[in-house]
Each structure stands twice: as structure tokens, then as C-alpha cells.
């Protein structure tokens, strides 16, 4: 089984296509792979508890590690301490650490 890093830069308020990456994350996790969904830029907007954040919580419950870039959160005034259930703030260094593990398959959306 493999490690996947899926980076979502778009938010689900503006882009319906975010569902595709969520489905891929869910499907890979179901197949037994380790999956990290790293939200960055406007991709962190649904991490604030809202109508859209439930999708992220469901992904987390389904075994996907859901992280939100702490820099992007702060830039948007989203408190790292009050994110949707299952979503954790993380530094960009986490992306680097996963990339540095050469076996990680990395996708930017």
C-alpha cells in the first residue's frame, strides 16, 4: 500500500470539482492506502465549520488525514483552534516531509 498527498487549493464554495479530489481521497483510503488531504490557499475556507465542512469531517472519519495549511488559515482569519471536526492545522513543512518520503504520490488540484 502507498502514501498519497492530495493538495487541494480550491474551495468547494466556488468549485464543484473539489468533489472529484474528495472522491479520489476516499477511494484510495478505502483501498487501504494512507491518504493525506492538505488544504491550501482558498482550499482552507471549508475548514471553518460551515455547510461545506461536513464533507471534510466525513473524509476524516473515513480514514483520510485532513490537514489545513496554517499560513492559509491565518491569512483568512480562520482560527486553527476551531476547525471543523477531523480537520487539523499543519505547517507547509508537512508537505515537504511527505514529498521527501520518495514513495509518496503527490497530486495538486
Amino acid at each position, binding site marked *: 500500500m502507498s502514501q498519497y498527498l492530495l493538495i487541494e487549493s480550491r474551495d468547494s464554495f466556488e468549485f464543484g470539482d473539489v468533489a*472529484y479530489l474528495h*472522491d479520489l481521497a476516499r477511494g484510495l483510503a478505502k483501498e487501504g492506502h494512507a491518504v493525506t488531504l492538505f488544504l491550501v490557499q482558498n482550499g482552507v475556507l471549508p475548514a471553518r465549520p460551515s455547510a461545506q465542512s461536513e464533507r471534510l469531517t466525513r473524509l476524516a472519519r473515513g480514514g483520510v488525514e485532513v490537514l489545513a495549511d496554517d499560513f492559509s488559515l491565518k491569512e483568512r482569519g480562520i482560527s486553527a483552534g476551531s476547525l471543523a471536526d477531523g480537520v487539523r492545522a499543519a505547517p507547509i513543512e508537512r508537505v515537504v516531509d511527505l514529498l521527501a518520503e520518495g514513495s509518496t504520490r503527490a497530486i495538486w488540484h
Partner: protein
Amino acid sequence: MAKILSIVESAYRATLEEQDDTVLWFNHMLANAGVELAVLLRGNAVNYLSRGQEVGELTFGSAGLGNPPKLGEDVAALKARGKVPVYYVEEDARERGLEGSGLVEAGPVSRAELPRFVAGYDRVFHW
């Protein structure tokens, strides 16, 4: 080198200014360099499989397009001689009214199959 899957979803982005789709072009160049590569078209990029794509006349003053992009042919050229297998997400095509003989031939992959399909490659370049 690793077996690479290029997932192409961007479509018709600056293709007239470039007289090419620069993502398809780049993947041609990777294949020419001997990279083991497959291409999966998804989202609006499935329309690159549509037959009958044609760029009409485009001129600004006396400056016109010398060599308009022929994106369906570019996709077919990727496949030619077994160079690069080309696949597409079949629901994305169907949702856009693209089916059957209206399509350049390529390998359908269903959304349900996508995770397993992606997992068959060592690296994924997402365009």
C-alpha cells in the same frame, strides 16, 4: 524511471495564443524523451476527444493564426504507434453529451475505478 500518469483536466486554456495545448505538448515531449507515460483526460479535457473540433478564422488586423491547434489530432498522435496510452473518465464524457462514435478512441475509466487506476502508477502529474 517511474511509470507516470498525467491527469489532464485543463481544457482550451490559451490554446489559440499557443497554437497548441501546452500540457498535451509537454506530455508529447516527455514521451519523446522516453518517459513511460499514460494520459487520463478528465473534466472538460474529455472534450479533446470530440471529433470535429475546428478553429475558425482568427485574425487581428493582418495577423492571423498560422497553424491553428488541432487538439483531437494531438491526442490521437499521443496514442499513435502505442506511444502513450490515452484514457478518459467515462462519466465526465457522458455528462458532456460525448459518447460513442463522436469520440476519438481512448480507454474509458469509470469514476469508481479511478482510485485503483491511479494507484497503478508510480507518479501522478495533475494538469
